């Protein structure tokens, strides 16, 4: 509906990207200082919970940006990415203390934050015209470690949370009801785990492809500059 250069969209997007980068940087800061003070992995969630919820849930706006056209991303991919993060955050981590206290949740949140800060800064500078080398290299290289650590973290959190989720039937809806809704969160999570099997390598190699194309483009741009 709105083209990229609609009035005030650029300042809004600049603000959005820098705020999200800042939010995720703050999450990293909390984790870093926690471990610096010799804190234990089980206690990370309590400290990081609120900023994490704010900054990750804010990503819903990225779907709106794609739908309205002020950002040139595919709605479907953005929707799936944001949905999967929100599902892990709110339907797995938030409900289960077993997942919250598992060291894998710290590895996962750290991976998310380490990927998101360069990503939002990359978009920020992209809006301004040119991305400094630092953020370009971080965005297209860190993922090679952070995708595996993030994804294994997510899988381990889901596995840790499943016993409680199955037993308590939290967020699940059973029949009979007027609109015939049957939703089993444990089932959804098993399905999610199954999707990771082809999905994770696909995402990884897709990003590798993006990296090659981005480096090629950057090299061409610098040659002609």
């Amino acid at each position: 509906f709105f083209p990229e250069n609609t009035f005030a969209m650029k300042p809004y997007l600049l603000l959005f990207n820098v705020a999200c980068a800042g939010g995720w940087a703050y999450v990293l800061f909390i984790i870093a200082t926690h471990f610096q003070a010799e804190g234990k992995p089980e206690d990370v969630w309590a400290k990081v919970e609120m900023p994490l919820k704010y900054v990750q849930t804010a990503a819903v706006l990225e779907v709106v940006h794609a739908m309205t056209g002020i950002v040139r991303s595919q709605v479907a991919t953005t929707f799936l990415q944001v949905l999967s993060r929100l599902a892990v955050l709110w339907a797995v981590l938030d409900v289960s203390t077993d997942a919250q206290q598992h060291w894998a949740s710290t590895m996962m949140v750290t991976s998310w934050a380490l990927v998101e800060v360069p990503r939002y800064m990359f978009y920020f500078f992209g809006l301004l015209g040119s991305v400094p080398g630092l953020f370009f290299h971080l965005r297209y290289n860190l993922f090679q470690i952070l995708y595996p650590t993030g994804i294994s973290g997510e899988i381990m959190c889901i596995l840790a949370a499943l016993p409680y989720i199955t037993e308590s039937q939290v967020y699940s809806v059973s029949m009979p009801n007027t609109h015939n809704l049957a939703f089993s969160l444990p089932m959804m999570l098993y399905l999610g785990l199954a999707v990771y099997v082809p999905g994770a390598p696909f995402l990884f190699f897709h990003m590798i492809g993006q990296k090659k194309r981005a480096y090629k483009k950057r090299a061409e741009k610098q040659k002609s500059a």
Partner: protein
Amino acid sequence: KAYEIPVSADVTLGEFKEAFHKQFRKYYPTRQSFKLGNREGEPVPNAKALSGDDTSLADLGLGDGAASSLLFKDYGPQFSYRGVFVVEYAGPLLFVLLYAMRPAFLYGPDAASKPWDPVAKLGVWCWTAHFAKREFETFFVHRFSRPTMPLLNLFKNSIYYHTFGLVIGYPLCHPDFTAPASELQVQIACGAFILFELGNLICHIMLRNLRPAEGSSKRPIPSGFLFDLVACPNYTFEIACWVAYSFMTQIFFCYLFTIVGGLQMWIWAKGKHRGYIKTYGDEYKKLRRKPMIPFLC
């Protein structure tokens, strides 16, 4: 990379693609796409992928200077166009029939012997008829403009249809299925469903008769029936079917299916509408049609 493939310009595009395939075994003809360009690899202005396998390269514009070479693009792995349709519709058809057997591991030990709500039975019949009709149309009605589509679409489309088949079929065949309170609602919705299915079938047959042959990408402006009001009445009837089915069965995931499907079809309808405008200009514009919803949008 530049290659010299000696051919005379009165070779057809199809023959050229075969020759290209012989030399580059990886790229079978349906994966190949060519644009006219010069020897430096720059495309001609407004270059479009060449089409018309029976047309000679000379007639497609290959000559000297700015259009003296063919620039290759790989469409990626392909799958039969018709094949994608067959697979994607088979999922919903199969899953609901399997659910209808009420397997114990899904619904509990004596589920299969529990009575069926008549509306649930009706829902199973209508769903099965809908997808059986789709398979029938895939083999006997539709004339596709292309023999293949990207392989990725097979997975994307199948995931879409199969997932909805799974989440709608489960409550539909569940022993605790709850029919709408009003029998009249069910009857009207069922009647409407049948009428809209017929409307959709008629549109498909009319579209088939407009296209001269399988493989042709001709899109003459349709006329008559609901075509007089919208560019894609087949989508109009399709979404109306699902609205009716939703009222008939009151299944939450069916509401989602209706909304998501409707949105996607509306986007496609807008594209087709724009395509007609681009190809026919005023001749189409003066008809004052809407993309999918009569008088609205």
